[in-house]
């Protein structure tokens, strides 16, 4: 309680600055991704600043509609979810604005807080009354539940080895060179984490939720104008936060802003490059995929962690 | 009855239609491929054609039945071929032929809120309808390509004498139509 009440304006300002920076960076990464995808498809592609234009345009829309209270609130949930999770992750160890509110809880808090935005989004989609939006949510939840399994297994293996849920502690444990990164310390759990991260990022082949060709854009089908702009901002920072979490858990965290930016970018691109070459899975295929190999890797990762712990003692 | 080996064309009286269709179905023509209508305006009759296929022996029968234009009514075949419902619905809409006992008669198929006579009847003047209902943009110029048809076929060669002349009536008909249509041709007029 006191820790929260003691925050001063300066600190909050720093946090706000870092949030804005993260949104900007997230949008920029989005632009780069579009450019990269265009190049892969031998197109010229939009300029890298295109997402800024899109978001600005959406905020400049003259009119917008709403379907009800929850429709109204969903973008708020989404944005709060994105920013909240960003603030709960220490992006750069020891830098005040970039550690945000991470003193409030550990990695479990971060993982569960991820659902906050998704839940709001899903509720807004439900309020819109559009069947396609709800179909997308149904598929998305199915997929989410399945990739969370390997991810939690990887996380459990990690915590078993590191001995703490605290993200700071996890980063500390990986200090001292690439070899200490958890990705290499326990490659099995690392693979499980990498694979489940694909699902988390919802790029192809796991983009059944947004599949524009069959269920027009999924949950945000009915969203427009500022609502959509808010959502895009939320999604941008959410992507950054997820990548940062992955970076902290598996890639040893970051000690400076450029390092964080590079690592986040690399993590992001992993999902993009995989997505560039794989067609979309159906929902049940995706569920089955995550419950097979990534889960086996996760279980093997835990076994390996236990073995290493046993050998150490 | 005409036949060219795999495709047979036959005509049947209205009273024998159902029996003949069932016969054909029993004979192996189990598939109703298409139902279509010809408007013999001059004869005052519609000819409804049922195209039936035998998927085993690759035989096709085109069974035509002529009905008077004044009382365009037929028994449905949807009890034999359920897919006929759609054909019958469409024919009902486009030609105004009623199929007794077919379930979706009178339900719009393509046209929504159509009030005029069924548009596929030959006595329906589509151009007139268009002029009455849809406004044209001034300055439109259109060239009737039918004129070029005749011109191309006029270019005779000395080898024509040896060319097979299967359809002598075709050119004549086209010419008739050309003449007939000339009166309402908006092709080279300018609106307003």
């Amino acid at each position: 309680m006191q820790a929260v009440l003691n925050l001063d304006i300066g600190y909050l300002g720093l946090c706000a600055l870092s949030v804005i920076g993260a949104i900007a960076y997230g949008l920029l990464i989005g632009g780069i991704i579009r450019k990269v995808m265009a190049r892969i498809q031998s197109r010229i592609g939009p300029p890298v600043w295109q997402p800024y234009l899109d978001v600005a345009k959406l905020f400049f829309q003259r009119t917008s509609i709403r379907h009800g209270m929850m429709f109204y609130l969903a973008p708020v949930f989404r944005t709060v979810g994105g920013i909240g999770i960003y603030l709960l992750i220490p992006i750069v160890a020891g830098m005040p604005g970039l550690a945000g509110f991470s003193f409030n809880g550990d990695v479990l808090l971060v993982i569960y807080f991820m659902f906050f935005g998704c839940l709001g989004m899903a509720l807004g989609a439900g309020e819109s009354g559009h069947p396609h939006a709800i179909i997308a949510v149904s598929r998305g939840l199915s997929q989410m539940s399945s990739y969370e399994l390997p991810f939690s297994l990887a996380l459990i293996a990690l915590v078993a080895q590191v001995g703490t849920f605290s993200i700071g502690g996890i980063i500390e444990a990986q200090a001292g060179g690439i070899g200490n990164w958890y990705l290499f310390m326990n490659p099995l759990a690392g693979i499980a984490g990498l694979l489940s991260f694909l699902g988390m990022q919802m790029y192809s082949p796991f983009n059944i939720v947004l599949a524009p060709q069959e269920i027009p854009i999924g949950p945000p089908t009915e969203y427009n104008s500022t609502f959509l702009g808010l959502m895009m901002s939320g999604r941008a920072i959410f992507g950054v936060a997820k990548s940062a979490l992955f970076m902290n858990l598996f890639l040893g965290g970051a000690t400076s802003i450029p390092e964080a930016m590079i690592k986040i970018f690399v993590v992001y691109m992993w999902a993009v490059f995989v997505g560039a070459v794989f067609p979309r899975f159906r929902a049940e295929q995706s569920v089955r995929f995550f419950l097979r190999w990534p889960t086996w890797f996760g279980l093997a990762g835990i076994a390996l962690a236990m073995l290493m712990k046993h050998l150490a003692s | 009855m005409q036949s060219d080996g795999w495709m047979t064309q036959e005509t049947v009286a209205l009273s024998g239609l159902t029996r003949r269709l069932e016969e054909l179905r029993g004979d192996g023509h189990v598939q109703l491929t298409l139902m279509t209508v010809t408007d013999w305006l001059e004869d005052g009759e519609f000819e409804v054609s049922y195209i039936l296929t035998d998927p085993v022996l690759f035989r096709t029968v085109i069974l035509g039945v002529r009905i008077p234009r004044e009382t365009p009514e037929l028994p449905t075949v949807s009890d034999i071929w359920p897919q006929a419902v759609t054909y019958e619905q469409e024919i009902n809409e486009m030609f105004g032929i009623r199929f007794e006992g077919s379930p979706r008669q009178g339900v719009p198929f393509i046209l929504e809120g159509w009030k005029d006579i069924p548009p596929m009847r030959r006595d329906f003047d589509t151009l007139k309808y268009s002029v009455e209902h849809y406004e044209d943009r001034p300055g439109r110029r259109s060239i009737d390509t039918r004129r070029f048809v005749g011109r191309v076929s006029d270019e005779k060669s000395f080898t024509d004498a040896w060319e097979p002349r299967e359809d002598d009536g075709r050119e004549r008909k086209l010419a008739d139509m050309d003449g007939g249509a000339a009166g309402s041709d908006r092709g080279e007029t300018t609106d307003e």
Partner: protein
Amino acid sequence: MKDEKIRRVPERIEPAPPDVLKDRAYDPVPASPRREVDPYCYLGATEVQQPLAYREALATIRNWCRANSLWVMAYGTGCGAIELRPLMTSRFDMARFGMAPRPTPRQSNVLIIGGYLSLKTLKRVIRAYEQMPAPKWVVGLGSCTINGGMYWDSYYTINKLDLYLPVDVYISGCMPRPEALIAGFQELMKKIKQGEANGWNEYLENIDDYKINQKRVIGDWRMPDYNW
């Protein structure tokens, strides 16, 4: 035409007085008594009057953003839609202009009518157009949208799209090549940047006329009550 019931939307919008025009360039707020009636196009009643220079600058930025981020609702009603596809692929790549296809009218800015419009389709197109958030633009593709094209004498296709929807840019041809489409979109972007693409405002200003025209051709006007 002998039927007086057809009420004409003026082919050309009469040039408004210069001050009004200037206002319009920056998302004009026409003094329309209709603004409460219109569920989609609520024209910001709470607009705060800022200094002119500020408004001009802001409008420039807005229009530039809008012009460079056109989200397209491609309504492929006829054969014209086939020429839209190459536009998205590697050879022509409309993405380089910031254009992107969008599967729902709620998120689109440009409605492309890709060919002739039968009455049945027209009904849906009107719905789609009305579900788009403002500002929104319509691009008529091919001769069919201009004067009926090869369906000029058909009993079930309209001949002149702008009687029923405000068209900002026509692209002629049967069919127009993708290059022509690009040229058309460039034109639209230019108009947007200059604040001249005001079809959606005209639609609102003349909504009665548009509705009369629409209802006249659409035989069973069974549009849901929320569409006026």
